[in-house]
């Protein structure tokens, strides 16, 4: 316990300004909800005032509707869960006509998560969703990291050159800014981030779920029909923090939307300090449908307690611990102190 607590005068709640920027976007606070964990928003209306969110990311959209994977699709693990939903969604067309109007009306930042089964489908999807430009869609969050579809997915997410080419084509296909959601299964995240930044991405989202597995020893079967699924929740927060920090250090000017195990205001602040410009709440929405706004309130209270007036102050602010005094066989002033 060598780090002395940083002395800081606490602030009144009102002294905290939660507003923040994500590239060109201005957000009222840094707490959004994550793709696949918030459906298309509507179903949370009984539980929270959706207009108070900073923004939300929709379930991943593909050019055509998809039915999703066989069941079982989810299973709980230690401090986390696995899912293999299979990117079930209504398809771009139905999204634009049936879901977007509701979202556009909310006045929050709407990020449409999207993907395709191959590169052409990605581009096609970006082109289709371009119809939402200035009609409610603020960001296209390009998911190159889903472990749950057969073709594409993983490969786009692990090879920088492939990701670069794909991003470039999608950026050219739409007027809406693109944020690329990177795969935590990639060996070199900074290279991936640089590659998509060079291709014109406005920012990156990280992390998506990490590929995992669970087995029912009684039936000798995997607990998910697809054998593998994506691990999310508190268990992965340390990995998310590391990846956000690595990318922020390597490509400091690239805004990062951080996610992975955020379940409290303190978790959110950790991600911001690692280098995220805003955060998304995923799995925690299931247990606490109003959780994202509670997390915003906790963040405000914690910032007040710690004397942090503005979000921008702390983005990526974490610094190495001071070095220990140099080792020597005897204390420097061994004689003096006797």
């Amino acid at each position, binding site marked *: 316990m060598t780090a002395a607590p940083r002395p800081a005068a606490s602030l009144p709640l009102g002294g905290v300004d939660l507003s923040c920027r994500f590239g060109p976007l201005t957000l009222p606070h840094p707490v959004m909800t994550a793709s696949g964990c918030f459906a298309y928003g509507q179903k949370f209306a009984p539980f929270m005032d959706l207009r108070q969110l900073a923004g939300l990311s929709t*379930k991943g959209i593909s050019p055509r509707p998809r039915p999703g994977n066989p069941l079982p699709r989810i299973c*709980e693990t230690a401090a986390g869960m696995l899912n293999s939903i299979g990117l079930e969604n209504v398809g771009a067309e139905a999204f634009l006509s049936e879901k977007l109007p509701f979202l556009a009306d909310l006045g929050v930042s709407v990020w449409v998560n999207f993907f395709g089964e191959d590169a052409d489908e990605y581009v096609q999807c970006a082109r289709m969703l371009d119809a939402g430009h200035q009609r409610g869609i603020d960001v296209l969050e390009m998911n190159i990291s889903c472990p749950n579809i057969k073709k594409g997915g993983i490969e786009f997410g692990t090879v920088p050159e492939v990701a670069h080419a794909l991003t470039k084509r999608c950026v050219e296909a739409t007027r809406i800014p693109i944020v690329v959601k990177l795969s935590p299964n990639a060996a070199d995240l900074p290279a991936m981030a640089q590659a998509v930044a060079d291709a014109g991405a406005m920012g990156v989202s990280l992390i998506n779920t990490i590929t995992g597995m669970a087995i029912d020893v009684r039936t000798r079967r995997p607990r998910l029909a697809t054998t593998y699924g994506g691990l999310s929740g508190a268990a992965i927060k340390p990995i998310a923090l590391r990846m956000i920090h690595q990318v922020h250090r390597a490509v400091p000017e690239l805004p990062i939307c951080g996610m992975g195990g955020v379940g409290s205001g303190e978790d959110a602040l950790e991600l911001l300090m690692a280098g995220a410009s805003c955060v998304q709440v995923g799995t925690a929405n299931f247990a606490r449908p109003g959780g994202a706004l509670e997390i915003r309130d906790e963040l405000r209270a914690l910032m007040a307690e710690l004397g942090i007036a503005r979000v921008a102050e702390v983005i990526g602010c974490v610094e190495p611990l001071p070095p220990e005094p140099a080792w020597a066989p005897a204390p420097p002033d061994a004689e003096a102190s006797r």
Partner: protein
Amino acid sequence: MATSPSQFRARVVDNRPLHGGYFVLTLQGPMAPRPLDGVIPGQFVMLRGDWGRDLINPRAFSVLDASDDGRFSVLLKAYGRGTTRLCHAPEDEMLTVTGPLGRGTFDAPTVDGPTQLLVAGGVGLPPLHLQARRAAAAGLASRVELLYGGRDADDLVLLSDLDAWGIAVHLATEDGSRGDRGFVTVPLSRRIERAQARGEAVCILSCGPTPMLRAVRALGLAQGVPTALCLEEEMACGFGVCLGCAVPVYGPKPYAYCCTDGPVFDAREVRWS
């Protein structure tokens, strides 16, 4: 359909052990509004204690009863980590509750409708118990009958309620210690045969372990008896957003959702082998 769901805190006012490892957990929810007013048999709640960072998702439990003093109860048995904790929840512990959830529920019995055969097993009793309670309260006790199976006599709980409501009960135990020896399908097929012999219209409403539901479904389909199944699928959210609780179905789309389209499904619709 009951009111739209909300999330609220509720206090454990009683956690009564029955025999066979079952517990009736009674919770005191808010009074105004009472979130579970008008709850329908088959609807459920998601429960979670202040369990920290493990056991991240809430657990689904059918509502056993809800009264107008804001109290409601569920029937529990220790299955895994979550249910084990709930079985040991002490008085005054606060739980987080989401509900009422579930849109597809059991139809109420009617004076001239088919006799409803309520087929229950294990922790699948609550929706049928509530169905029976409501039937009795509506003066329709004779329109429902409970067929109830368990491993042994100990595995059959809350039977005195059914007696008190004047509802006919047919029992089966695997070890023969009470009622028919065998699965609940034994008294069920006998009852269906009797109905068919005398031209009585019957339908099946069933809830219980999946192997039991499969057998009930097969029987219902084979005998041409309209069959409604209350399913249990693994759930993360309970309100239609995680898409984890998919139920394979025949119909315009390959999957329906246990939490929002169900938990009650027409047996014909369910895509089971």
